[in-house]
């Protein structure tokens, strides 16, 4: 009876609402209600849609929008972005645009301005959609997440955080408070590419790459593809082909082909496995060339 759960005009779930003003307050609530059906409201653009369309339930809703401690942007060493910062504020940071183009491009590619004024990066990450746009660049940039609870705090790689469709390793009393992106070294280049049915869309396929250049050699690289598996995946076998090698067109073509071989896409309403496989190759090639150029490399 799928149809009965739908009414996108209203929210039928009844819940208690909290808007703590401090991080400690939020953590208290999370601790207190960890055995209950408690959900965190940041932008609400995924949460409320799920509540309306698939009947996702909540007994307690904790808004983190009122917590000043989560609204910071720190660009001193790398990037540290608080959990309550909307995506549109991140895309306006000069350092993001200049040094982290893959992240910038991924955010700009998402939905539309009104959504980006509401949605947050941790929201996108915790939603753990295989097509989540910020996830591939965050993995490519080796970003970490700070998870805080009353018991303490820990820092995990985005890459290790998501385990499957909608699944993460976050504990019920934990709050993702900030995204930490390491400083990008000189001679690095990143790129993000995405295909959708229209410009404002969930990705048929998306991918991010980040390369470190030393002369003509690719010192290190990360190739991360989204919407081609149960979660964003690194094409490690393809990365291995590049690492430590002199970069040329042939090698990029070979690497791109390898990347398209290691993914496991499916047919769904947005696209086909066949198309995704082919596009993985085409887009990896384009992204590597773009990133290599941005790293100051020549072909």
């Amino acid at each position, binding site marked *: 009876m799928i149809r009965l759960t739908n009414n*996108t*005009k*209203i*929210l*039928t*779930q*009844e*819940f*208690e*609402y909290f*808007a703590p003003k401090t991080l400690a307050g939020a953590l208290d609530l999370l601790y207190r209600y960890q055995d209950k059906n408690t959900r965190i*409201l940041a932008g*609400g*653009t995924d949460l*409320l*849609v799920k509540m*309306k*369309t698939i009947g996702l339930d909540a007994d307690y*809703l904790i*808004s983190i*929008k009122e917590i000043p401690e989560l609204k910071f942007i720190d660009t001193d060493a790398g990037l540290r972005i608080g959990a309550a910062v909307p995506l*549109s504020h991140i895309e306006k940071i000069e350092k993001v645009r200049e040094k982290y183009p893959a992240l910038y491009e991924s955010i700009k590619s998402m*939905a*539309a*301005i*009104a*959504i980006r*004024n*509401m949605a947050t990066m941790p929201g996108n990450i915790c939603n753990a959609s295989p097509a989540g746009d910020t996830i591939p660049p965050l993995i490519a940039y080796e970003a970490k997440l700070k998870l805080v609870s009353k018991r303490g705090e820990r820092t995990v790689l985005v890459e290790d955080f998501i385990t499957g469709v909608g699944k993460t390793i976050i504990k019920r009393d934990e709050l993702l408070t900030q995204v930490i992106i390491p400083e990008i070294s000189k001679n690095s280049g990143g790129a993000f590419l995405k295909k959708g049915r*229209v*410009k*404002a869309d969930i990705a048929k396929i998306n991918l991010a790459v980040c390369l470190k250049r030393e002369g003509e050699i690719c010192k290190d690289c990360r190739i991360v593809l989204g919407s081609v598996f149960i979660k964003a995946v690194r094409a490690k076998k393809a990365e291995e082909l590049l690492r430590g090698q002199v970069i040329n067109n042939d090698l990029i073509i070979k690497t791109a082909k390898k990347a398209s071989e290691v993914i496991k896409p499916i047919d769904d309403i947005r696209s086909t496995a066949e198309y995704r496989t082919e596009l993985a190759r085409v887009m990896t090639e384009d992204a590597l060339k773009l990133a290599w150029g941005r790293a100051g490399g020549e072909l």
Partner: protein
Amino acid sequence: MKKIEIEFIVNGKKRRIFVKPNDLLINIIRNDLYLTGSKYGCGIGECGACTVLLDGEPVLSCLTLAVTVNGKEITTIEGLAKGDELHPVQKAFLENGAVQCGFCTPGMILTATALLKENPNATENEIRDYMRGNLCRCTGYVQIVKAIKSCVAEQKSD
């Protein structure tokens, strides 16, 4: 469910009302404040018909809990004109044939005003990109883009 009192500014006027935690901003605006210019189009953030300005930034009222706007300022399409004087974007929409059925128009105009405030010299491509979340089934957008272009302070090509 217990109702919560919230205070916020709507189109320049302070309002104090009681809402349930699960009340959506769109329904409070339309049903309780009788500001029916904000439209329900999809309820899931895909069409932009319910766009309002929250502290000056376009957001979707269909995905906003009313409780969360406590202490904030909201502008709906009804609050854009200054008395009888239409906002330049409203005027431009009329002059450029940018309005057909009109159901998307309030959201379109509010989004366009935010764009022009943020980027008064927006190029055509920047306009097209910024407006991509506001769906219109009637006009094919071209005259909407033209209307917004006509409000740009300094015309630049892409």
